[in-house]
């Protein structure tokens, strides 16, 4: 065997790549093509679908679900900013002030993942409930109006998504901040930069790769999320994910659902591309 390997050394990497690459081609690339193909077909589940190259479905879908598309983008952007604002100081603290507690703090950030995110979201539904132990108690004490509610509002949905994706932001930010040579910050301080100045001119620019990765890891899943809108929101907070899920799994309207899926995918790729352009020099690797 090893003689064969020595003779065909150039083939070894391809042999290593083959099974994984095959799997991803078969179950990632081809499904995307299948989705594109289904989006151009017409028909019903009972009568079968036939290819009609119905390109008109894309503008139709955009016009029909424009509210949900815009809302998903809005929520995605708000969540990205919020996770960044909450996560950055935390990642900074762990990286520069964590000391010997670093590992433990990082584990604390990851540990919520060991509880199913469905359960955590249901838990939030429960915490935010109109007569739950938080709002109910505040209402009984007269601190809140009886009609006040958080569930079924954009606030609940946005905070739910923010909660879900916060750990995804802290980790890459931590990795980027941890890499910074602390002597550079000390040098800035020695040269009479104020703490704020040193942060803005040294730490922040050096952490931009982390900010880039973190914002994508928050924005992409947030835009496509439908669980939070489903469990914490009402009809007025539905996102594009809710529509895709309903069209696919309840209405069996595969062409329309596939078209929306494709629009979401292309929309995200275009935003990521533009964003990469803005933060120029960032490589598209995680």
């Amino acid at each position, binding site marked *: 065997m090893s003689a064969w390997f020595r003779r065909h050394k150039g083939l070894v990497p391809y042999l290593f790549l083959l099974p994984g690459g095959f799997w991803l081609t078969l179950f990632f*690339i081809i499904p995307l093509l*299948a*989705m594109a193909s289904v989006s151009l077909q017409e028909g019903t589940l009972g009568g079968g679908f036939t290819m009609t190259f119905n390109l008109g479905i894309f503008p139709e879908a955009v016009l029909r679900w424009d509210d949900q598309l815009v809302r998903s983008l809005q929520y995605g952007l708000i969540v990205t900013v919020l996770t960044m604002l909450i996560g950055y100081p935390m990642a900074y603290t762990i990286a520069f002030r964590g000391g010997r507690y670093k590992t433990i703090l990082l584990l604390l950030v990851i540990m919520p993942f060991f509880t199913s995110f469905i359960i955590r979201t*249901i838990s939030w539904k429960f915490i935010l409930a109109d007569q739950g132990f938080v709002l109910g108690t505040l209402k009984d004490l007269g601190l809140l109006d009886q009609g006040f509610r958080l569930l079924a509002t954009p606030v609940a949905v946005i905070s739910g998504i923010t909660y879900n994706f916060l750990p995804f932001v802290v980790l890459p930010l931590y990795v980027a901040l941890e890499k910074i040579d602390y002597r550079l910050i000390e040098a800035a301080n020695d040269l009479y930069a104020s703490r704020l100045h040193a942060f803005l001119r040294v730490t922040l620019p050096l952490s931009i790769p982390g900010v880039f990765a973190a914002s994508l890891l928050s924005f992409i899943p947030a835009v*496509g999320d439908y*669980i939070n809108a489903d469990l914490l929101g009402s009809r007025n907070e539905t996102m594009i994910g809710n529509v895709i899920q309903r069209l696919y799994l309840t209405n069996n309207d595969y062409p329309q659902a596939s078209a929306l899926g494709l629009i979401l995918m292309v929309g995200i790729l275009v935003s990521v591309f533009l964003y990469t352009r803005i933060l120029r020099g960032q490589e598209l690797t995680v």
Partner: protein
Amino acid sequence: MAAGAVRERRSPMRVRAARAILPVYTAFVVAYLFLPILVMAIFGFNDIKGRFNFTWQGFTLEHWLNVFNRYPALNDALRNSLLIALVATVVATILGTLVGLALTRYEFRGRGPINLLIFLPIATPEIVLGASLLALFVSLGIARDIVTILIAHIMFNISYVVVTVRARLAGFDRALEEAAMDLGADEWTTFRKVTFPLIFPGIMAAGLLAFALSIDDFVITQFTAGSTLTFPLWVYGASRIGVPPQVNVMGTMIFAIALVGILGWILLQRRELTATPAPSDR
């Protein structure tokens, strides 16, 4: 002079207060991250009267004692989840590690497209991954069951395994392998005795990540499951009519097992560190 003394005494205090802001803030965020988990655990002990587990009605251990007796379908769902996570982890870790090895240790043509193929599934929203697989299965008339869930889980885990293994391999010293070869080891022996032990922690980390992602996955599973139920799918279905406290108990159990595993792992690492004698000891 008195004023100067006062200022001298006050400023370190103010500095200390300023230095406490970030740790205190971090503690608050950690509390926020754990709040829903704490609520879940507490309400697993709630002595509920009806179907709704929304307000505290008294302490009971009943749900812990009958956790596996009340809902057979929930047990099946949990078993499905564990089985899927286990198989998906093993397969994805093997496939992903091979890709990671190829990308970090070999020169070859086509690196760019392969990198893109690894990166894209991570940059694609889960709903698109699930929906496109559904489109494929529907187009080909493939019935959805536990096999299609497995196919999907292996698919989304491969990229995460590659990224994790590659991060570990990036700092790998090739000289160690060359040294082994110089001492007469063939490729396979070198891999077995040198390369593999060195990258093993990275493979373990990737496997753990894959297991966690798989057992928790809802979105992709919902699209590829058909009528098969996993733990998250069962819980989601139950949430419409009221989640029984047995779910809280199972959630708490999974969390506790993970916690014990992590603590064990940390202790083991500490032990290994102290077991290696420092150079000065010799």
